């Protein structure tokens, strides 16, 4: 208590000296006081923000109002462009089958690609004999009504069963877990 009182007496003596006798000190004191207003930063805890993750740069998206077909709906390609002689014959038969029969008898194949498309793709990737054998195996598997848990699915509900699994070339076999969904695009 005594020390505090002594400090107060010194302070008042000093202030009296500054205010009454020393102009320079007065000026310095005002200057310090004025600027000390500006150097008190705000001290505040920063808030927690919920944030999303943008792990890749992205730009404007061109989305459409229109109803879109499911990405994995199979499209029929009737064109004979780019086919060699054998391919033209095969594709012509396929086109005729699709036009006169397949497009009329409804959706009977539970697979994607459909059996006829599978056959075309199988022959294009291998040869007519191996392609026919692959198709025969596919046709047999299509007769199985209990294939629920064996194949992954595509967006429109068909079972995903690509040609690459059956070419007997191990390096192109890409396993997709059954019951998962596949985007064939």
């Amino acid at each position, binding site marked *: 208590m005594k020390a505090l009182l002594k400090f107060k007496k010194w302070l008042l003596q000093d202030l009296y*000296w500054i205010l009454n006798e020393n102009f320079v000190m007065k000026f310095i004191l005002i200057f310090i006081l004025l600027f000390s207003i500006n*150097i008190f930063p705000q001290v505040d805890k920063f808030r927690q923000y919920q944030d999303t993750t943008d792990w890749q740069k992205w730009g404007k998206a061109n989305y459409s109002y229109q109803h879109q077909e499911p990405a994995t709906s199979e499209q029929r390609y009737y064109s004979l462009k780019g086919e060699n002689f054998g391919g033209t014959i095969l594709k012509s038969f396929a086109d005729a089958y699709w036009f006169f029969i397949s497009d009329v008898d409804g959706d009977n194949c539970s697979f994607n690609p459909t059996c006829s498309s599978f056959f075309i793709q199988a022959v294009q990737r291998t040869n007519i004999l191996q392609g026919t054998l692959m198709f025969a195996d596919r046709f047999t598997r299509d007769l199985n009504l209990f294939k629920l848990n064996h194949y992954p699915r595509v967006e429109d509900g068909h079972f995903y069963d690509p040609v690459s699994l059956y070419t007997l070339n191990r390096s192109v076999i890409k396993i997709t877990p059954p019951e998962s969904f596949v985007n064939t695009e």
Partner: protein
Amino acid sequence: MIPTICLVFLFFSQAFPQKDSSDYFDINSTSNIKKFADYLFCADDYLRAALEYEKYLSSYYNDTVEFKIGLSYSRIGNYSKAIEWFNKIKNNSGFSNDARNEYFKSLFQSGDYYNFRKYYSENIVNNDKIRNLDKLFYFSYFFTDDELPPRNDFLNPFNLKEENKINEFYQRKTNPPYKSVAAAVIMSSLIPGSGKIYTGQIGDGIIAAIATGLCGYLAYDNFKAKHNFRGWVFSGLIAFFYAGNIYGSAASAQIYNAGIQFNFQNDVKLYLNQQNYFTPEYDFCK
């Protein structure tokens, strides 16, 4: 005079807490960029954090920031950039060991197992007490077709708790439960559909058997009734289903074996993720 000086000193000590006064005015100051980057890093906004940290580094060198940039890229799967940044950390930095770990981890995660093994073998530090990279080194063999090192060498870096699991993986890699393609073909040749049942496709095997059998009966029945044309049609169908079933059995065995390998690698990756690839967790955000 002394009390006045004390008073002035008090004001100044209050007025300058920790940071540079220029922070207050400029949210794009270097220290504010780092503050913001730290916040983004802890909020998992890694790409933004990395870009902000890179901005910061254009003014100041900071090895922690370099390391965090590498970590950010590693966490978003951009392993080539992660590797680039981990490589920049100098040997005399406090993060050099961690950077080395993360460099090799990124190389591993990028799937470049051969280079991972090659660079690791070239860079083994003598008396290196860190066994974790050794573990990753041996794990890389699970993802390639190279012959595995002897079992004892393989198990050496792992502790007792880990040994059981590693042993299981080792066993699955050296003796995978593959199905024989030849066996499937022979079985289907003898009994249509049996090759498919052997490879686990029971439904398909039964259908193949029924289809072949039914066509056989119909062919026999039609020939017996002197309906030769139909008899030959059904005979053709027998050949169709029979040959298809043999081919399908071979393909089915291959798919089965590919599935074994796929499941094995998935299980290994799951285990590695659970162990964080044998690298420590960092507490930058605590």
